[in-house]
């Protein structure tokens, strides 16, 4: 958006990413996204509760195929996401710089870290069963094996704060959930949704089946409670639910999730202090897994 150019920029109409498609919001409304100086960047779709429910339907429909594909194949797809992001590095750097009010160099470093994070999780898909699974030496003539399986549909309140939250943080919560075969519906950071909405465009061209990742921008207080109370959501990542009160607050959402006994990731005590460049570890990878133990007698 150079001031001196006589050429007028072609602006992008940002859209939701649901079921592998790019719908406008059911609300027919948008909201202004600005940089930290209040400068208008773009309009983002004002995703609604209905959009969120549609996204959960899409995510549910995708569970069977995605969890049923081989771990090797899921790894290939996640690596493909990294490949596709690499080619769009500049675009994401610009969006992250604007979203988080940081310089181009820092923004680029965050995008690079996000790309590397996809690579890290791509490598995990076919190893997680080996570190989380078990052959169990039971006291009797039985073959007994514990294997991890995905929980199903995971609702994610994307990070709203912390260094690198708008993109690296977003990738850090999406990638581990889908690496293990879950599908996700993500409430993007309300004030900085543009990198998330652009990520949808990358995912759509990364061999990722439609519905595996669904991205909704809008008011967290509309989207998060819908995810928390939804009967067909199995897990809830409340990392970005940082408001201390109101319908988007973590405690209320966790209480709502208890109705269906969702698996919940609670936010850090101080999410603003979170540095998303920290090494991720395996916590998020293991949070939305179930352990299934299979028994069979041994005999002739």
């Amino acid at each position: 958006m150079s001031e001196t150019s006589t050429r007028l920029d072609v602006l992008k109409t940002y859209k939701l990413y649901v079921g592998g498609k790019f719908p406008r919001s059911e609300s027919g409304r948008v909201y202004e996204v600005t940089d930290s100086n209040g400068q208008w960047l773009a309009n983002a779709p004002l995703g609604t509760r209905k959009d969120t429910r549609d996204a959960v339907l899409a995510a549910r429909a995708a569970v069977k195929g995605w969890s049923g594909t081989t771990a090797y194949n899921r790894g290939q797809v996640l690596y493909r996401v990294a490949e596709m992001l690499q080619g769009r590095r500049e675009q994401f750097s610009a969006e992250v710089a604007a979203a988080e009010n940081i310089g181009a160099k820092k923004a680029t470093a965050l995008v690079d870290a996000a790309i590397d994070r996809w690579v890290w999780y791509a490598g995990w898909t076919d190893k997680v069963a080996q570190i989380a699974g078990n052959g169990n030496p039971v006291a009797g003539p039985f073959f007994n094996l514990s294997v991890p399986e995905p929980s199903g549909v995971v609702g994610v309140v994307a990070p709203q704060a912390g260094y690198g939250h708008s993109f690296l943080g977003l990738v850090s919560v999406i990638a581990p959930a889908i690496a293990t075969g879950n599908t996700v519906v993500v409430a993007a950071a309300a004030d900085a949704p543009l990198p998330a909405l652009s990520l949808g465009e990358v995912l759509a061209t990364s061999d990722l089946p439609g519905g595996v990742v669904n991205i909704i921008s809008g008011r967290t207080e509309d989207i998060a409670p819908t995810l928390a109370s939804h009967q067909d959501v199995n897990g809830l990542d409340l990392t970005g639910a940082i408001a201390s009160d109101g319908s988007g607050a973590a405690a209320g959402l966790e209480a709502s999730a208890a109705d269906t006994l969702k698996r919940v990731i609670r936010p850090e005590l101080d999410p603003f202090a979170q540095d998303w460049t920290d090494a991720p570890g395996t916590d998020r990878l293991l949070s939305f897994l179930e352990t299934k133990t299979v028994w069979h007698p041994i005999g002739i």
Partner: protein
Amino acid sequence: MAKNTKKAEEPVRKSGLFEYAPAPESPAAAGDIATSYGHFIGGEFVDSSGSEALKTVNPATEQVLAEFAQGTEEDVDRAVAAARRAFTDWSALPGSERAKYLFRIARIIQERSRELAVLESIDNGKPIRETRDVDLPLVAAHFFYYAGWADKLDFAGYGSNPRPLGVAGQVIPWNFPLLMLAWKIAPALATGNTVVLKPAETTPLTALRFAEICRQAGLPKGVVNIVTGDGRTGAALTSHPDVNKVAFTGSTPVGRAIAKQLAGTRKKLSLELGGKAANIVFDDAPIDQAVEGIVNGIFFNQGHVCCAGSRLLVQESVQDEVLDALKRRMDTLRVGDPLDKNTDIGAINSAAQLARITELTAAGEAEGAERWSPSCDLPGTGFWFKPTLFTGVSQAHRIAREEIFGPVLSVLTFRTPAEAVEKANNTPYGLSAGVWTEKGSRILWMANQLKAGVVWANTFNKFDPTSPFGGYKESGYGREGGRHGLEAYLDV
């Protein structure tokens, strides 16, 4: 017992010519049961701060066994404080020393297992055959298994220095009083936590006897605390601000309430809740073995089992054959005195539970399912329920959807493996499932498709301390047993 003279006149059982003679275990083996019990706090048996007392009855005779304290908030407070005080030293103790305490406890349980088995049968109503051959060996095995972990936590896969959480508040049900105690206490102590445990209000006696074992083992004071009482005591414990971890086994509604209660806190929570397991029998299954598995799946422990195979899904082509064999087998089940070593099915744990089973089976009939039970005499006093079979059950029936927690089996049919999976998974629960077929590839396919934390193939209701146990969906979260069971008590 004056009935002995009538023996010659008793009719010959349908099941065979030769009737088993009574083979009663001696109630005296249970040891002395006090007339009233307080709590076990800080290594001492203490009186409750309140005056309310509850009674625990022998469900087979309805006789009051003992009075015990209804734990007050103040009692819970004292117990948590004792556990907190003990935590500093206990968590600092080398794992190898903690291990030795747990090994000691395991050994004492083995030494005293007859006493504990008889006491469990008297307080719970379950047959002595099960307490003696299943519960007690598993209880000891759990302490042995986790004893060995105490000094090997660095190798458990949770990082090089996994830390305990602090004070664990544990609430357990009445169906396996000692076994659930072992599942909770053994991993908690191995990982360096201290505990306050609340046993169920109908079965507090073996937990209080376990407190004596802790004393015999010389366990430091306050490491294990037992507070008795009903749901009010449990709620005081799970909501106590100085508890760092809550572990609950019980019904899904209560688990849901606890999860709600803990929302917004930093307390770690593990839940083992209800189930409505499908036991799936294919046409190529060995029918006799499958029937044994079906019987074990639903009539073990009077069906008071969260992972009981309460929905029989039988392939349509073998339905008649399976049901005929099942009814023949059910005819031989012996219902009665839990202390008789030949008893298969003991007493229902409480009047309240009997009422619930009665209500749900009545609903089954009212909704059009066909009810069948073998003809057997039930004792005049006590809480009893005949093993019961429902055929013509549809997926919408309450008896196919709600957990009955009694000796009641609902039979549904299917034609294809895909239909079996569809029906098996059509429940908010996801604790366990059974598959009976001779085809290995089909077993593995079914095991993959079933949304259940435990899948028993060509067997059912098998447990082992090395083997993680726990549910999907609304059957709760977290696993107990095995390496996975450590995670619930570690800061990871």
